[in-house]
């Protein structure tokens, strides 16, 4: 569920401003609002607070980042990071900026020139590799070329599909050179051709201008290559490439030396400057008059007392914190702060796929935490699979470092419990293996033996009843949301939609002789009243929603369908064990099929359970479009 928020305003004398900001920063509970947006100039004349004496912090940050990313990462064997962290944490902002400027002065030119040289050499190697590839391809036609000094060899790369252009180039070369040229071509690879033109150097400018104008990819060999044989050119390429590689190795060595001395200092420094930059941006949200400052924002209800106490203990009566009255318009801008019990928190991961709920909306994650595992359990419903999913997810959860992976593992761990419970109900242990071994048998409840292969219609009915309940719950939550914002039309739409669904069920029940005939009249009356109300409450879109709500209930049939597909595959796996002549081969095939089914069983039901929430359930109430609670505090440390 979402934590209740309080809108607060902190006012104090200007001389205490920085201390108050530091205190709030350390407390880390206030989601700041831009004061200039909240208080009109007619109310109080406030100007934005600016950090003075720091200069162009974004520019410094760009330069520091530029230097930092040029240096290779080194191991922090001497605990340099901790040392610089300690040094900078005790320094005021001006000192940090001064240090950054000094580092830039010491390093910027050196690193820039090293990076530039390295890039030049790398580009040269790329070009040499290209020359080599083309020359090796055309080397075999060398004997056909005239060995004339003072002539230029021009290589053009042309896509095979555009080879018609060769005739055009040939004609143009004839015109430019007065028919004194040689022209031939050969394939380079599957897609391109290399065309070689040999002509007198005095036509060089005109030929290059023509080639440039035709937009043909030209491989322009270095000038000192002219007059050499292709073999000599290859030797020159090798020589130059070796020299360039040596240069790059030398530059890398120099960068590594620099890195040993500077990497960790730069790493810490850039983090501090990012913080200062963030702080500068934040300061724009504060307002000040000649003698006082104003800070405004949102604090979670449970953190308000602690925030107020800290300010009072630190500043006594000099700084005032008060709760502001909140209008419905203010509520629309209030931040969303998930404050869920531990077992619900992993399901907030799914909420990240959508825009967060607005402050006044119901947080759907507790509903997901309840229904997702049940849907998963109904679909997989196997004791053996449930136990394996439990073991795998517990192991992943214990070892994973990434939070998203831990969340997913926690969700699967929770889902494995209903999987085992429904496995008992369906009497499934690796499909029908449990039944063959006389360990498990389908349980008989409400006169139905819940064997999924036989009780298809009861399973379908169960799935639709679950769907009906879930959709009605969604409509109920939608009704509550509409009541929160006092939207009568939406409230009527939700109630009328429920009325139409009940009316349809009653009519269908009567038609199928499950209900007495006179109930049909009640159903028709309910439909006649509810349908116009749906139009009144939701307009044409309300009617579309109504049709989709009926379709949504049918969609829960997947709880039966996916489960049935899973159990069929498990049974097929067991059949393999006995059907293949050699027992060992059969067992291996069965184990492989079970593994595949288990893999699909962990993935597919998760997607379908998620879909039932996001499409069928959320569409009944969820709007989204809120902004997450981001308190004013130190950014998470990078590893």
């Amino acid at each position, binding site marked *: 569920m979402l934590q209740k928020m309080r809108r607060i305003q902190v006012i104090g004398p200007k001389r205490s401003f920085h201390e108050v900001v530091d205190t709030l920063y350390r407390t880390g509970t206030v989601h700041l609002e831009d004061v200039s947006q909240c208080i009109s100039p007619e109310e109080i004349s406030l100007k934005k607070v600016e950090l003075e004496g720091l200069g162009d912090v974004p520019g410094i940050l760009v330069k520091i980042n530029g230097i930092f990313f040029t240096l290779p990462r080194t191991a922090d064997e001497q605990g340099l990071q901790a040392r610089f962290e300690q040094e900078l944490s005790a320094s005021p902002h001006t000192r940090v900026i001064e240090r950054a400027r000094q580092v830039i002065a010491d390093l910027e030119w050196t690193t820039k020139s090293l990076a530039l040289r390295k890039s030049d050499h790398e580009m040269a190697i790329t070009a040499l590799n290209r020359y080599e590839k083309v020359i090796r391809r055309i080397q075999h036609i060398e004997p056909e070329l005239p060995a004339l000094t003072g002539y230029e060899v021009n290589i053009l790369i042309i896509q095979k599909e555009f080879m018609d252009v060769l005739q055009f180039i040939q004609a143009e070369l004839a015109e430019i050179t007065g028919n004194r040229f040689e022209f031939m071509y050969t394939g380079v690879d599957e897609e391109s051709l290399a065309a070689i033109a040999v002509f007198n150097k005095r036509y060089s400018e005109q030929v290059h201008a023509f080639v440039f104008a035709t937009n043909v990819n030209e491989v322009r060999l270095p000038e000192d290559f002219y007059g050499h044989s292709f073999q000599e050119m290859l030797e020159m390429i090798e020589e130059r490439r070796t020299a360039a590689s040596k240069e790059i190795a030398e530059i890398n060595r120099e960068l590594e030396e620099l890195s040993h001395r500077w990497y960790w200092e730069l790493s810490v420094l850039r983090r501090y400057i990012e913080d200062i930059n963030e702080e500068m941006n934040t300061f724009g949200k504060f307002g000040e008059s000649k003698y006082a400052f104003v800070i405004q924002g949102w604090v979670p209800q449970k953190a308000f007392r602690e925030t107020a106490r800290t300010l009072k203990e630190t500043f006594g009566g000099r700084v005032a914190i008060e709760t502001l009255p909140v209008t419905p318009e203010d509520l629309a801008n209030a931040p969303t702060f998930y404050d869920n019990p531990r077992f619900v928190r992993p399901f907030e991961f799914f909420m990240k*796929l*959508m*825009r967060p709920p607005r402050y006044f909306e119901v947080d759907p994650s507790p509903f997901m935490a309840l229904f997702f595992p049940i849907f998963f359990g109904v679909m997989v419903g196997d004791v053996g699979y449930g136990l394996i999913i439990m073991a795998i997810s517990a192991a992943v959860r214990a070892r994973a470092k990434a939070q998203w992976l831990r969340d997913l593992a926690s969700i699967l761990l929770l889902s494995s419990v209903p999987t085992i419970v429904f496995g008992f109900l369906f009497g499934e242990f690796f499909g029908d293996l449990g039944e063959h071994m006389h360990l498990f048998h389908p349980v008989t409840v409400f006169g139905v033996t819940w064997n999924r292969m036989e009780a*298809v*219609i009861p399973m*379908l009915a169960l799935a639709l009843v679950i769907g009906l309940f879930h959709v009605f719950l969604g409509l109920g939550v939608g009704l509550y949301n509409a009541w929160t914002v006092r939207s009568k039309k939406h409230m009527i739409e939700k109630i009328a939609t429920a009325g139409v669904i009940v009316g349809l069920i009653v009519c269908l029940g009567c038609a199928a002789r499950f209900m007495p005939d006179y109930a049909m009249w009640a159903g028709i009356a309910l439909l006649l009243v509810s349908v116009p109300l749906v139009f009144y409450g939701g307009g044409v879109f309300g009617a579309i929603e109504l049709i989709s709500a009926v*379709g949504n209930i*049918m*969609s829960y*049939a*997947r709880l*039966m*369908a996916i489960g*049935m597909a899973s159990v069929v595959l498990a049974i097929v796996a067991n059949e393999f064990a006995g059907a293949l002549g050699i027992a060992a081969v059969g067992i291996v095939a069965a184990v492989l099929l079970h593994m595949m089914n288990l893999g699909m069983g962990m993935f597919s039901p998760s997607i*379908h359970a*998620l*879909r039932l929430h*996001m*499409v069928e359930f959320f569409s009944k109430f969820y709007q*989204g479009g809120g902004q997450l609670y981001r308190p004013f505090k130190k950014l998470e440390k990078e590893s």
Partner: protein
Amino acid sequence: MAGWEIPIGAAIAFGLGALGTGWAQSRIGAAGAGTLAERPDAAGTIFIMEAIPETLAILGFVVAAMIIIMIK
């Protein structure tokens, strides 16, 4: 009636539903992938759009199951 007509009918019911779903999802998926490249925050909406036609295959499966079970 208990000949080849029943499985063929069930196969048509499920097969056409699955084909319809596949065709719709391929169109939505291609458009969705393009959208995500420019707007990664639209992942939730794309997921919903992509999931909508699935119902067709599921209903096809249900009808196929009904044909096999109920028509003897």
